[in-house]
């Protein structure tokens, strides 16, 4: 009787979501039974055979109208408040110590990138009992990363990073679906999340295929794409150096400032004129169409790895 099974609860939020669901199910089920029961009872008790003429013609009763409106509203607001509380937990920014993974959605596959440079397609290995953060981006249309056992999904947008996070609690292998219709093979954009005990996960990571960390791949890209001909490690007036800038505010040419984060780095590669750093010329060409989302992520990881480096 597998089809009657309650869906697995494999994340820290899953039980919370199920609790709200079950309470709403009980109250709503009760309401449906009450209304259906009343209707059936009235239809039998006041059937035309037994009751050729109506007994009563009461038009309205204010106390009843107010009473049932207030009861309904109270129940609805209770559902709102409880659901909102959990939602804000789920959708808040991930904890700082989260294990950070990158996900790229494309028609029709999921590509994942671990911090050590490991890549996976349609499979994502994660440790249990530790927050896992996924930075999401799409290469084409809107997708949605959905893991039913975690009771979690988030849409994956083109040209904008979004983020989701969860804490797996139960080792195992779980469905991973694309939930936003994305074209012909939408239903094949599926895979597995494999949650592992921390020691197993370390082992799994240890079997790395030796592609080098993402940051190292980024460093190679920066050289091969010719970035370093302007972004030189010694300070020049052509372009700023990458060292020590990640996570820090930077002053812009128009007098405002911004924080150097993933989104800013991505924008500066694809649309360099949008936010030019103060005292530099808007001389960089756009790399849109010449660089993939994976490569942007590697370069970002490289710049991030230089965050402790002193700038100038």
């Amino acid at each position, binding site marked *: 009787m597998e*089809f009657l099974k309650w869906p697995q609860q494999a994340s820290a939020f899953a039980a919370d979501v199920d609790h709200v669901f079950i309470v709403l199910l009980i109250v709503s089920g009760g309401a449906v039974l009450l209304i259906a029961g009343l209707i059936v009872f*009235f239809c039998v008790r006041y059937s035309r055979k037994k009751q050729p003429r109506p007994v*009563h013609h009461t038009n*309205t009763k204010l106390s009843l109208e107010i009473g049932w409106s207030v009861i309904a509203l109270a129940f609805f607001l209770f559902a709102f408040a409880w659901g909102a509380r959990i939602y804000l937990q*789920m959708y808040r920014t991930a904890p700082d110590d989260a294990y950070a993974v990158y996900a790229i959605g494309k028609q029709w596959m999921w590509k994942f990138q671990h911090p050590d440079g490991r890549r996976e397609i349609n499979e994502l290995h994660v440790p249990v009992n530790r927050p896992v953060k996924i930075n999401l981006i799409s290469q084409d249309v809107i997708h949605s990363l959905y893991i039913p056992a975690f009771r979690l*999904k988030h849409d994956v947008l083109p040209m904008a990073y979004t983020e989701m996070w969860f804490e797996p609690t139960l080792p195992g292998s779980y469905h991973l*679906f*694309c939930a936003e219709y994305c074209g012909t093979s939408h239903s094949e954009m599926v895979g597995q999340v494999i949650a592992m005990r921390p020691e197993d996960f370390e082992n799994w990571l240890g079997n790395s295929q030796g592609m080098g960390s993402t940051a190292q791949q980024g460093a190679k890209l920066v050289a091969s794409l010719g970035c370093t001909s302007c972004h030189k490690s010694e300070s020049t007036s052509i372009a700023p150096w990458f060292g020590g800038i990640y996570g820090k505010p930077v002053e812009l040419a128009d007098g405002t400032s911004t924080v150097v984060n993933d989104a800013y780095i991505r924008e500066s590669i694809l649309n360099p004129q949008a936010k030019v750093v103060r005292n530099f010329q808007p001389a960089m060409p756009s790399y849109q169409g010449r660089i993939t989302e994976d490569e942007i992520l590697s370069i970002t990881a490289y710049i991030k790895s230089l965050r402790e480096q002193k700038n100038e």
Partner: protein
Amino acid sequence: MNETALPNYLQEGTSLGSWLLTRDHKRIALLYMFAITFFFVIGGIAATFFRLELVTPKGDLVEAATYNRLFSLHGIVMVWLFLIPSIPAVFGNFLVPLMIGAKDLAFPRLNLLSWYLFMAGGTIIIGSAVLGSVDTGWTFYTPYSSLYSNSHVVAAVTGVFIVGFSSILTGLNFIVTIHKMRAPGMRWGRLPLFIWSQYATSIINVLATPVLAMTLALIALENLTDLGIFNPWKGGDPLLFQHLFWFYSHPAVYIMILPAMGVVSEVITCFARKRVFGYNFIAGSSLAIAFIGFMVWGHHMFVSGQSPYAGLVFSFLSMLVAVPSAIKVFNWTTTLYQGSILLSAPMLYVIGFIGLFTIGGLTGIFVATLAIDVHVHDTYFVVAHFHYIMVGGAVMAYFGALHFWWPKMFGRMYPESWARLAAIMIFVGFNLTFFPQFVLGYQGMPRRYHSYAPEFQVWNVLSSAGASILAVGYLLPFIYMAWSWKYAPRSGPNPWPATGLEWQVPSPPSKDNFSGIPHIEDEVYAYDQLFGKSDEPHSAPS
């Protein structure tokens, strides 16, 4: 009344031209009825194919590309060519003038134009389907629809764009008619609740549909040119499309359900032989739904990447819009109390409506609850939820209205036991089709999946089995209503009997509806004057 001498509206010319150029609201209603029946069959055939496909987890009956076109066609046809026009364009057209004591709608020519626009749009949509159809889903999400789909998006949105103007013009016509053409004594507080629901619906049609038109025009333009409104690579925002689309398409749900609620109010009082309970609250809740319904569109976007705080606001407002619906359900139920109830075919449909709409409405609370929506969004749970509202609600009410006003429209009865059997089959078939989808959704099966994980098969088989019962249930009325048209016994002007103004003229009515100008002396649900109270003393609390 001495109106029997006048020919009825069906006898005013039998040539094709007398129908295609008619300005009589009743004939235009029938033109709509034939058209939407045809579209309903098309949408149903598409559903038959994908329900068959879903019997097995593998995509083995049709290819993925075909499957995607089938559910897209099903959605587009059922939403825009059946549900939106169904009750307003057929029964609204037929009944609004009759119920308020008017000769016709305010703008009879505009009314005919609306039908032609509807047919033009419908023809383009069906034409695009014949050419190869669209594969975007009925929601046309960007950038898939604007940049990636290789299907006939431009043709389909053009069709929907044109159909939209039919809605706008019909809405405008109803608003003006209800304001300006009520018979003497037909005060706002005496209007049938069906009229209130049509009025609320018309407001939504007039205010929301232009937004859809603009949005679809932008989709077409992005397909044809380099415009960058929704294109993120040109600085556009694909989420903007979702905001604009749902700004229309959520109120559109109320365009479908409000008229259905109007039907329920009429039928339930008639077959309980009792004045409706809480007239002001039912009428007022229609307006409240129309008003608040404009402010909940963002609940379709809780997982889209919009701000979580926007999510909070939209979740809260969605809870508020549920209250007027609850008020209606409670008032209908109370109307039955101490009545004299006959479970005729229209009444069975309407009671079915109340049950299914209640489940649809309450599961609406589930999906408006943020934490639950994160899990069930874009799964079969949502599919089940909105089918309970649109099919369990709107389609049940459409069939209820069809049976209730059929004698008025054609002057003939229909075979009652067949009609009751159909109502029961539709109710049972519907539940068997869609209840399993709630389970599938909570278990995590995403919607719009051509193939699926094997553990979801049992519920899918049940659902498809239910769909076959539902299909037979829908087929029955086609057969016996066609028979009734020619062969059933004549019905007389008021077979149930009911109190509304439309029942005081012959069936079918004459071209001008009334022989003189009716004067209204009393509220519309004066069933106590028609039947009086029982003499039997009753012990129920006062």
